[in-house]
Structure formats: C-alpha cells, structure tokens
C-alpha cells in the first residue's frame, strides 16, 4: 500500500457523522472481546501444537524395556537383577542401539509417585525394572523382531515404543487444537457479521447524507472510504485493547503454569514468534473489518439506484 493510499484510508472525509452512531460504540467493545477470545484460542492452539511437537521429539527414537519381577523375596530380587543385566548386555549388542540405561529404583519410585503416592517405596508392590533405550535415528531397528528375541531370552520382558499412547495423546491434542482454531474461525465470522450489521445500520441511519453525497457527484468508493476508515479506527481501538488484555491474561497464566509444569506437561510459555503471531491478530481483525465494511457499502450502494 502506498503512503498516499494509507494516508487516504485514515484521513478519509468525515462527511458522514458515523462516530455518533450508537452501533459504533458497541463495535469497539465487541471487537475487543472477540480479539481477547481469539487471542486465547490461538494461543491455546499454538501451545497444544508445541506440546504435541515436544512429545514427538522427546519420544522419537526411544524405547522403554520393562522387566517384570518373578516370585518374591531375595531370590526373586537377585533373579530380577540378573535378568536386567542380561537384557542390558543383549540390547547394548544390537545394531542401531546407541545407549542403554537402567533406571534406578529411586527414579522409578519418583515416576510412580504421582499415581501411587510416596508410600510406593515402602510398599512391597512388584515394581518392574525399566531400561531406557536410545536408538540411532538412522538405525532402522526392527522393533517387533527385537521384542520377540528379547522375550525369548528373558521371559517377562516387554518393549514399549510409546507409539500407542503417543498416538492417542496426539489425536487428543490435535482435536483440541482443531477445536481452538475452529473457535478462532467462528470468532472471525462473528466479527464479520458484526461489522456487516453495523455498516448496514450506518447506511440506514445516514441515508439522507449518502443521497446528498451522490447528488453532489460522490462516487461509491468515496462513501465506502468513510465507512472503511471508520471501521478501521474502531477495530484498531478494540483490537489493540483486546490484545493488551489477552497478553496480560496469557502472561499471568504463564506465571501460574510455570509452577505447575510437571513431567510431560511443558510450562505455559510462548516464544517471541508466537507473540508476534498473536500481535498480528488485531491487525488481521482490523483488515477484515475494513474490507468487510467496504464490501458491504459497495454492494449496498450498487443495489440503490
């Protein structure tokens, strides 16, 4: 857009007293609320996308080997330790495996604590041993074959490549993400409907002035300019105010979420790029409002004759 056109858009004639219309006051508030909701919906979608991406990166190329205890007492414990060492040796010798690490009892107890509570260490529950295995990204390990051979060597062992539950979780987060983006889309549609309604109300209220402008030789785009400049001003006011409120809310959620971040739930923080995308939302809303106002006026005036 050239400087002249940009200036013209903001400095368009104010022959029509659109600012006095009752609907004008509401438009600022409505756009403001819509930008708050839209920003929160978009931030949620971006955070969920981050969570899904984080899970995929975190768990890609990793396996967890589980070896169940057999029997009770010291003999069983000794047997479990022996089977774990055998599994370690077997796994370390397989092509495509770069790291094998058995989780300590304390680490396992800590992982189970959210579900079993602090007593899990004292309880005589049959806790399995877990071996964390890291695969070579280019190793192309045949997981089913590895599972079968390990089970033959060490009865009671199992390999979890996290695929099943990760797929379910990603499906869930994807559905929530889609819902959040759909809400954003609905909010934008509602914003468009509001601008159409407000613009039509303005056309009806200022029918006489518009007729006068036509009679003194105004072209439709001259009249449309006034409506679009008005819509731009109001939507920018509402949009920026809404963005500020949403930014405060997201920052507060970030502080609260920071303390609540556990395990695979990441902290509630946005990157600079994500903030920039959110900051573009009021601008996008203003552009949509401006274009909607122009189209509404041009179509309505074309129907008049």
């Amino acid at each position, binding site marked *: 857009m050239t400087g002249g056109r940009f200036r013209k858009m903001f400095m368009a*004639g104010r*022959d029509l*007293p659109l600012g*006095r219309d009752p609907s004008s006051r509401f438009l600022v508030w409505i756009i403001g609320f819509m930008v708050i909701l839209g920003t929160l919906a978009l931030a949620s979608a971006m955070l969920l996308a981050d969570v899904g991406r984080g899970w995929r990166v975190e768990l890609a190329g990793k396996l967890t080997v589980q070896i169940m205890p057999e029997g009770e007492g010291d003999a069983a414990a000794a047997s479990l330790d022996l089977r774990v060492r055998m599994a370690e040796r077997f796994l370390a010798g397989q092509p495509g495996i770069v790291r094998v690490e058995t989780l300590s009892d304390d680490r396992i107890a800590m992982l189970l604590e959210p579900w079993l509570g602090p007593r899990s260490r004292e309880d005589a529950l049959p806790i399995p041993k877990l071996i964390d295995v890291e695969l070579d990204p280019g190793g192309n390990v045949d997981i089913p074959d590895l599972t079968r051979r390990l089970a033959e060597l060490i009865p009671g062992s199992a390999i979890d490549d996290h695929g099943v539950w990760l797929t379910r979780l990603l499906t869930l987060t994807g559905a929530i993400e889609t819902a959040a983006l759909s809400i954003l889309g609905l909010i934008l549609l509602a914003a468009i409907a509001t601008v159409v309604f407000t613009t039509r109300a303005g056309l009806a209220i200022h029918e*006489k*002035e518009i*007729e*006068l*402008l*036509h*009679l*003194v*030789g*105004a*072209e439709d785009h*001259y009249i449309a300019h006034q409506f679009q400049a008005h819509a731009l001003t109001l939507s920018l006011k509402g949009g920026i105010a809404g963005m500020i409120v949403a930014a405060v809310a997201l920052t507060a959620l970030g502080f609260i979420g920071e303390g609540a971040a556990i395990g695979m739930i990441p902290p509630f923080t946005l990157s600079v790029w994500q903030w920039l995308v959110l900051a573009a939302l009021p601008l996008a809303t203003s552009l949509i409002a401006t274009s909607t106002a122009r189209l509404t006026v041009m179509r309505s005036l*074309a129907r008049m*004759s």
Partner: protein
Amino acid sequence: MDRKKDIVRFQNVGMRYGLGPEVFHDVSFGVKAGAFRFVVGPSGAGKSTLLKLMYLAHRPSRGLIHMFGHDTATVARKNMPAMRRRIGVVFQDFRLIDHLSALDNVALPLRVAGANEQQLREHVAELLRWVGLENEIHSLPSRLSGGQQQRVAIARAVIGRPDLLLADEPAGNVDDAIAMRILYLLEELNKIGTTVVIATHNEALISRFKFPQLRIKDGRVLDSGADPGASITAPSAVAKARGS
C-alpha cells in the same frame, strides 16, 4: 457548452410514484445552455419532481430525458457521478450536513471530486465572502439563520462550476428582501454562463424578472417561450472561484 444546444431535453416524459397517478403526462420541453428558466405552478403541482428528474434523483416512468446530450436511461451507473457534478442543486430544505461547518458544506462537491485541499479552502472561503458569509465560515448550520443557510446551499451548488444550476424554492423560507437578493445572485450566476432553472410558487416575486417560464398545470408543462440566452459579466470573486 454550446449555447445553441439543449442542456436539458424532456421528450414525452411521464412520472408516477409507485402505483399512484401520474404526476406528469407527456412532458416535452428543452432548456438551452446559458438559459434562465422559472418553473412555476401551485404547491403540489410537481415542480420539485420536475427538478428531481433533472438532477437525476428520480428516473421517469416513461419518456426520454436527455441531459447534456446524453439519454439518462442509458448512462451507466459509474458515469452518473460525473454527470451529477455538472449539476448544482439548491434544495428546498437546503440539505446542509449538520455536523459540518459552512466551509465544509460548501466544499463537499469539490472534495468528492478529489480537489486539492488547499485550493479548495481558498475557493470556498472566497465564495462564502461573495455570498456575504465571511464571518460564518466555521459556523455549523444550526447556528445560521434561514437566509444564511440558503446562501450556504447556493454556494455549495455553484462551487463546482456546474453547467446547470437547479434551485427548488430558493426563496421559500426567507423574507421578500432576502428572496430578491437570492434571485439577483442567481441572475448574476446566469450572466457568467451558468444555465439556471428555478422552481417557485411565488409568482409575484418573480414577476420582476422577464425570463421564460415552464408552467405546470394539471400534470402538463407549458413552455412560455424561447430562451433569450444570457450576457456574460463575471464578478471577480465568482470568476476566481470558477477558476477562470
């Protein structure tokens, strides 16, 4: 504008509002460039409707209207603004925009035509001085008297240097002294080349002017005679305002 040509030509024009009776039947007349015409008839005879047809606010129910040589029925919508800019209108109820100053009201035709803002302000201020409103340039219409509003309306009608000036009861809301002043003002504009058509029911007032009349009676228009044309004597302020 070629003075020999009709600037306005009605051919067998009929006009009705909705499904109501015809206001006019088979109206035919012409107004030559540079002419001065009165449209007379009692209140409700259809004077305003005749003017509305001329300033393209209405379309006729039947017949042909040629404005500036163009059949208005075939003029594309996108070309209407350019045609309307050739017509200045003084509305019966002035139709000034309440929240705009006298200057901004008068500037409207130039602004919609995309005129330079600085030149526009100079011309408008000069024209307002010419109509005696130099002290009311920034006044809102609500602060002006009826006569002053009338003069703002006239200034707005002539600022765009129209080829045709239409005035609907320009003396309708003012006393006789101001009414005469307004008519002399319009006569001056005619002398500098503007074709003027004035609708009025006040025949006593216009009896001092020897211009031909279009008399509306029983839905028909009687043309009282040929156009005498007009002499050209430009008052300096108007000449400047017209950019000459």
